[in-house]
């Protein structure tokens, strides 16, 4: 019977229209960074020629190649790139455009690589902590929690330096902001799109009989109200399928469009990716591919949690439109509620463990970059707690439904 319920899920023309609309939107979003595409690919050549990490050897080789390029355009001989760049007027005006671009990129990655070690040595997380305490007005228990978490972050920072994770080449973050582009702009768009599809689809399946006035006929059959159990499973599977499809299609196009070759095995917590003062640091030593995998898994799990929330709402409301509205109200109400939590106790952090907050900051998932969610298992705990909670609420709602009057 689950097959029948699944077929109801995929029978909505609105769903297909929305999927098409979202995919078109995502394509437009991906193409919007088209102008960076050509210069982005340089980093792949860097990895190919100098290896995956900015070690002393690879930096030396980069410097030699840079100098060789410069010496093609000037009779002067420089011993370091730094020295050469102090006299850039002697070679830049005569350089061909291609060589100039190549030199510019080479210098960009060389300079960044050279600064990596000293940057992490000087990186003071206590400053970040103080900034966060001031920014959010934390005191008392909340301040203690943050102090404790930044101590763990400090440990992780030392560990990543020991592992030389920070030396992995990646797109230059301050120049291209590719992490934000992929995980914030595209990632957040994907999450909201999948959420909209999940809520629509789940409400559609759960209220199908009520909306079409077949409930009085179908709920007195032998299968009866136990059909709602099948709907739960079917809507979960359908939400997973539709979300996975939108993710796979969009990310597939993204990785065809932007060349990540050579970077897939780069450590996520590298210095090159830094977009702001605080570089991205994941809680674990993961490669970019592993991070992406974790991100997609968490994103799909998030949709399952939204599916279960919607299922419980739909069982009580038995009306598709009311369910959409109730979900939106719940989302908004939770955001208001979390902003009202006192900033002098750990409660302010407890309030962050919510799928409604989690969906807002996907670029900071599994990292220590958002002070309010600076917990190594923030994503896992949020998904597990809300998932478990809504399994129980769903089961209770189902039980309640079997004893309710259907008029």
């Amino acid at each position, binding site marked *: *019977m689950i097959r029948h319920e699944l077929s109801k899920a995929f029978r909505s023309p609105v769903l297909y229209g929305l999927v098409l609309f979202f995919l078109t939107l995502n394509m437009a979003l991906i193409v919007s960074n088209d102008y960076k595409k050509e210069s982005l690919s340089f980093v792949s050549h860097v990895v190919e020629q100098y290896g995956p990490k900015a070690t002393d050897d690879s930096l030396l080789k980069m410097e030699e190649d840079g100098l060789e390029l410069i010496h093609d355009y000037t009779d002067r001989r420089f011993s370091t790139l730094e020295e050469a760049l102090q006299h850039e007027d002697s070679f830049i005006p005569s350089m061909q455009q291609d060589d100039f671009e190549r030199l510019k990129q080479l210098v960009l990655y060389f300079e960044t690589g050279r600064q990596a070690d000293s940057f992490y040595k000087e990186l003071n997380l206590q400053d970040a902590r103080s900034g966060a305490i001031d920014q959010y007005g934390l005191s008392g228990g909340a301040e203690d929690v943050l102090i404790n978490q930044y101590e763990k972050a400090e440990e992780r920072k030392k560990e990543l330096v020991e592992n030389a994770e920070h030396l992995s080449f990646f797109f230059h973050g301050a120049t291209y902001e590719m992490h934000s582009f992929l995980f914030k702009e595209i990632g957040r768009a994907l999450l909201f799109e999948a959420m909209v599809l999940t809520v629509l689809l789940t409400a559609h399946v759960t209220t199908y009989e009520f909306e079409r*006035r*077949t409930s009085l*006929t179908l709920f*007195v059959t032998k299968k*009866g109200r136990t059909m709602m159990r099948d709907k739960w499973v079917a809507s979960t599977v359908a939400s997973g399928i539709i979300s996975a499809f939108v993710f796979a299609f969009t990310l597939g196009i993204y990785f065809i469009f932007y060349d990540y070759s050579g970077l897939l095995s780069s450590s996520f917590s590298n210095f090159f990716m830094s977009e702001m003062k605080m570089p991205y640091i994941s809680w674990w030593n993961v490669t970019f591919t592993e991070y992406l995998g974790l991100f997609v898994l968490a994103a799909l799990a998030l949709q399952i949690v939204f599916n279960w929330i919607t299922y419980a709402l739909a069982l009580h409301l038995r009306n598709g439109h009311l369910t959409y509205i109730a979900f939106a109200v719940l989302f908004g109400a939770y955001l208001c509620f979390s902003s009202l939590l006192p900033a002098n106790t750990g409660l302010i952090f407890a309030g962050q463990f919510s799928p409604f907050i989690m969906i807002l900051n996907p670029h900071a998932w599994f990292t220590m970059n958002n002070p309010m969610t600076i917990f190594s298992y923030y994503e896992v705990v949020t998904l597990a707690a809300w998932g478990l909670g809504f399994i129980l609420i769903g089961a209770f709602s189902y039980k309640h439904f079997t004893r309710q009057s*259907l008029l």
Partner: protein
Amino acid sequence: MLEVHHVTKNYQSFTALKEVDLQFDHGIYGLLAPNGAGKTTLMKMLVTLTFPSDGEITYNHENIVDLGEEYRDILGYLPQDFGYYKSYTAEKYLMYIAALKGLDKTKAKLRIKELLELVGLQDVGRKKLKKFSGGMIQRVGVCQALLNDPKVLILDEPTAGLDPKERARFKRLLSTLARDRIILLSTHIVSDIESIAKEIIMIKDKRVLYKKNQEELRSLLEGKLFEAIIPFEDVEAYHSKFSVLSEKQEKNGIKVRFVSEQKGAWNEVEPSLEDVFLYVYEEETDLSEDRKHD
């Protein structure tokens, strides 16, 4: 045996049914009452769509709610407002309901063919339901109720939307089916159950007023029902003195059919089930509406 034991149904502060006791054995039972009397509420309780606030309903001495799937397996129900999926063909919709009723595919296909023939829809089984008339949809509704060959068949206003020919066919069908099962049929149209119902149940003021066979019901007005042709200006006086069940325009005045406890110079007439219905629900029925059913 299906039994209703002292059942009361409240909707918050409103009481729809009060202390209802009924027993159903094999045969057709007609639930006759005007709209809003609680027929649908009683039927929804009998099919477990809603539950008694007090009392219980049992099938073979077991509570139907506790029986759950076992009870629903022997149940056929046609709701007053039979919903369907417009884009489905009649066969597809019936196959879907058959699956929900636990019938295997092969058995279901044969049963659907048989039932579509029974209701005269064998030629349109593969047509989409959106192309069906109201009467055809109602016949599909009857088919789905009969899919599992139910021991308890509950039909809420089943003749709504059927033309006279279809109604006659439906009455014949019910008579055939009633031999080995309980059929409870609710209606406010007397002719639907006249001649086929084993017993008629009348609900008034939230309680069961009568559960009698048609003969017993008619005897309630025995020797009390009269007809007279009176001048138009006397109609008002008759209304205030007697229970006037019907009026009919004649050449030389108005022919009134009325109930009187005392005999007079009027023609005594044989009471029909409709007379009993109109008399019992006098305050709740509108004569102009009743004439449509003559």
